[in-house]
């Protein structure tokens, strides 16, 4: 998770929901660490310091550009097939799951996630969204299948919000691959993500009542298809320190009037140094 020092909180929170810089599972970590299919999932906790620049849609920045320094923390705990991942490279802040079935190259998990909140009074310090109803985090429950074919990983997932808030259905398909060149571990990842209209409508829609109370025009969310991709490298500095660098890019429209700047693409570059306990 990135905790921006600059006041990019709204962008960050909604980025998590719409997975602009993130992916819907730990496939990114698996690729980054060059873990094989035969490996046990590992327990870990790491903290780090990162920096990044991005260009894309923004709720608060009229230029839709940002530079930030961040504190990162992520971890995972696994026990008898059960797992909990938190603040990983995922679209959900916390994922609780169970590895239910394995067959040949495929592994099947039942997963329950918890996303970040959307627009709330707490994170809207500048009062940009005063008068809007409070949005709260979703809890997507679903299944995901992960297939390993050599250096390639494929992951398919289907989830439904069970919190009763967004009530959205989200489906995603990812393909990733890793390479090792000396001690540098490279990875590439591409994702196609589909979400029903309820997702955008809940987080970025503006009802007639809200439009009457604010300067925002009414907007009804639409079903969305987004493309996310990233290439990155991980380098072990020592037994406890690792260096990471990532370039992310994606496509997907954001037509909500809540956005200060709307673009149908994003590009981000980030780098970090983390301590692994």
């Amino acid at each position, binding site marked *: 998770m990135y905790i921006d020092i600059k006041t990019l909180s709204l962008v960050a929170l909604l980025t998590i929901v719409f997975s602009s810089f993130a992916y819907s599972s730990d496939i990114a970590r698996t690729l980054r660490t060059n873990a094989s299919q035969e490996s046990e999932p590992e327990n870990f906790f790491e903290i780090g310091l990162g920096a990044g620049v991005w260009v894309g849609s923004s709720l608060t920045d009229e230029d839709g550009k940002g530079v930030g320094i961040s504190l990162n923390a992520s971890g995972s705990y696994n026990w008898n097939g059960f797992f909990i991942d938190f603040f990983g490279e995922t679209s959900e802040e916390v994922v609780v799951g169970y590895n239910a*079935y394995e067959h040949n190259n495929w592994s099947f998990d039942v997963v329950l996630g918890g996303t970040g909140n959307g627009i709330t009074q707490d994170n809207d310090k500048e009062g940009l969204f005063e008068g809007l109803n409070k949005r709260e985090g979703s809890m997507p429950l679903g299944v995901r299948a992960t297939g390993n074919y050599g250096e390639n990983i494929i992951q398919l997932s289907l989830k439904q919000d069970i919190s009763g808030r967004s009530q959205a259905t989200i489906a995603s398909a990812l393909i990733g691959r890793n390479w090792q060149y000396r001690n540098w571990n490279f990875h590439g990842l591409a994702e196609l993500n589909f979400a029903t209209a309820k997702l955008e409508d809940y987080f970025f829609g503006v009802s007639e009542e809200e439009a009457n109370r604010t300067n925002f025009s009414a907007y009804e969310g639409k079903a969305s298809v987004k493309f996310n991709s990233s290439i990155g490298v991980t380098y*072990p500095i020592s037994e406890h320190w690792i260096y990471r660098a990532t370039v992310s890019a994606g496509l997907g429209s954001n037509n909500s009037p809540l956005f200060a700047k709307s673009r149908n693409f994003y590009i981000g570059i980030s780098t970090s140094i983390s301590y692994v306990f």
Partner: protein
Amino acid sequence: MILTKKHKQRMPTLLCYFSLLLVVFTWATYSRSAEFNQNSNELLVTPERCVALRQGQTCYQEVVFSWRQSQKGNYCLINLLTKHILKCWQNTEQGTFNLDFQSTQSTDFVLRAEKQEIDLSKTQITVSWVFKSSKRPKSSWKLF
């Protein structure tokens, strides 16, 4: 920091202790260094550690071996894991060798007199990693 009269009285004693500590530390460092230089039968490698991201990965490291013996002779540097002779030197008492180390595990290296089996000096390149990797047991259905 405010020094009281009591503190000021203790200052010479403290300075004495500090000076003594400094002398002991300097002597210890010098004697260790002298001992290192006098030990002519040595085989050193720098750096001694190679760090991979994950256990089981091949670790890559450019290393330099340097060795010295008390007498001139024909000596060979050997990888003990693979039993491979890396290089032999003729009629000399010292040498260096650059190696592009590539291994999944820690490896011992020795210096031996040519065509001899006795290790004259020994050193190790330790392979370590950030993330452990343990084998997952084979299973199918886990639920129910």
